[in-house]
């Protein structure tokens, strides 16, 4: 512990925030979908993985990374719309476990389709040229790309916040989350709202996958690991709470990077320990409403 300078800790803190930004993007989609549709999307990791592969494919076609930043969320979001409309919609009102089971089976299909199309082994994903290198952030040189991830996540969050709080469609979404029945009585087609929410959530997951690709490469199984970690984020933050997902996502990222500084072999276990502690003290999570899920 003696060798840890303040600068090193501060750097690691930023690394943790960049990692946390990926968790945040992944978890807000999960949380948004759950908050509105009460569906736990087990295929969220698969959408994340497909996002990275679509990015890889577009870049190999000659498209650049900046184009992918727009195209990937749109493509993955559209996939999400199709999945909601044709697979999940028939299951509403059949018990909370069924959409979960369905998306779980769907993730198998998606992973295997990607394996058929791109093979079982992974690919490296180049950091776009403009974002290579490092910048001085006061405490040392920090990779520019990680800073960029934090920036994109902040921009997406801001956009989502403006969309939910300042537009009339956002108002309908918030109302639909609170009481779908009343919204339906007021003449709003709630199923259309749910359709779009599912699409938005999946689109953000695809974006998160694309952003994570240069950090860790692209493999068909990349979604399963982050899914388990994102569940920790949602449990810690409180299911269905977007603010909770943001804070818990950043916290989990920082905990992972801080633990890897002190005890690298315990880095993966630490976040589950964090979850266990939160479960013991506050089972509904930081911002969760008690009894919401019963």
């Amino acid at each position, binding site marked *: 512990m003696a060798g840890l300078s303040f600068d090193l800790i501060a750097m690691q803190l930023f690394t943790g925030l960049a990692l946390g930004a990926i968790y945040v993007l992944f978890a807000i989609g999960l949380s948004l979908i*759950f908050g509105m549709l*009460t569906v*736990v999307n087990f295929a969220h990791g698969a959408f994340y993985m497909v996002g990275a592969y679509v990015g890889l494919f577009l870049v190999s076609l000659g498209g650049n990374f900046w184009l992918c930043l727009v195209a990937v969320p749109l493509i993955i979001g559209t996939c999400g719309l199709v999945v909601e409309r044709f*697979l999940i919609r*028939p*299951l509403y009102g*059949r018990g*909370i*476990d*069924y959409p*979960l*089971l*369905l998306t*779980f*089976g*769907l*993730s*198998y*299909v998606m*992973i*295997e*389709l990607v*394996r*058929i199309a791109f093979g079982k082994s992974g690919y490296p994903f180049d950091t776009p040229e403009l974002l290579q290198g490092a910048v001085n952030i006061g405490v040392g040189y920090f990779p520019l790309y990680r800073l960029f991830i934090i920036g994109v996540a902040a921009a997406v969050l801001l956009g989502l916040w403006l969309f939910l709080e300042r537009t009339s469609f956002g108002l309908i979404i918030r109302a639909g989350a609170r009481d779908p029945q009343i919204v339906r009585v007021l003449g709003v087609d709630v199923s259309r709202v749910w359709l779009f929410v599912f699409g938005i959530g999946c689109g953000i997951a695809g974006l998160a996958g694309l952003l994570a690709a240069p950090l860790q490469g692209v493999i068909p199984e990349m979604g*399963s*690991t982050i*899914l*388990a*970690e994102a*569940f*920790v984020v*949602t*449990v810690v933050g409180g*299911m269905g709470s977007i603010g909770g997902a943001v804070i818990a996502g950043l916290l989990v990222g920082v905990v992972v990077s801080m633990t890897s500084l002190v005890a690298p*072999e*315990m880095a*993966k*276990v630490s976040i*589950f*320990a964090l*979850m*266990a502690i939160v*479960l*013991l003290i506050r*089972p*509904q999570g930081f911002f969760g409403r008690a*009894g919401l*899920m*019963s």
Partner: protein
Amino acid sequence: MNEISQALPQAQASRVGWFDFVTRHRAILASVLVLVFPLMMPFTALAVNILIYGLYALGFNLLFGYLGLLSFGHAALFGSGAYFCGIAIVHFGLPWYLAIPIGVLGAAVMAAIIGGLAIRTRGIYFAMVTLALSQCVFYLFYQAVDWTGGENGLRGINVREINLFGWRFDFIDPLTRYYFVAAFVILALFVLSRILASPFGAVIEAVRENEARARASGYNVTLTRLITFILSGAFCGLAGALMALHLSIVPIEILHIETSGMAVMMSLLGGMGSFFGPFVGAAVFLTLENLVSLWTVHWQLFVGAIFVACVLFFPAGIWGTLLKWVKS
């Protein structure tokens, strides 16, 4: 058996005679099926796998089908059973008849820890928490290389011969191995049938049907859930211990999320909440895996698609749908 038939709810008596007979003697009939099963299979190795995974799905189904809690972390219980049994043999040189109970006990303790944490949350959280905790167990076993062999798996579980009070059985012979495993599975079938037919079994189903009403009737819902989770863990641990003996190695993949998913898929394919369902599910799943892998490596695509279709159109599973059809 007499106790079991007496403890069964009266409502079942009104059903068709032979159907009632099947339900009443489900453990005996399942045992007979288990005994003749290898004769119907093309190779015995597959039959042993079906038996072990069937037991694993059976343990999972106690929790999911009867109590109504969806766990995505049963790989941790199955895996602990295998690892604790294996460690007892490899590192402590214990004989199999001590190693198997150690595996079962280890899995039950693991279930008490995971279950104790997970049942603090409710409803949909449960699946997420169990999945996350099983991932944690994976990393713990993965890191403990000295005990578990880490990535290479735990090797050297060599049981060549079963010595039972002077009778010697050759454990290498596939058919002997099958009946060795079958003996434990049959024991588990009777124990499970007894649990389900007991007043406690009725409480389990009461909690699934209506938690508030069960609580109002004076039953301790939390305790019922914890005990059922531990029992489920013990069944899965037995399956894991048998797996360790059968494979003579414990691969680290046994703790993967995919192994948890297998229990979910088998239970749902076969029919959750039915006694034979998990075995039917395990048989269908593994046979499908074997058949489809003959012509493509992408068998998961088919299994996944069939599972999705099952969720959409046959939520009662193969066995459950068959039962409904027979009843009407």
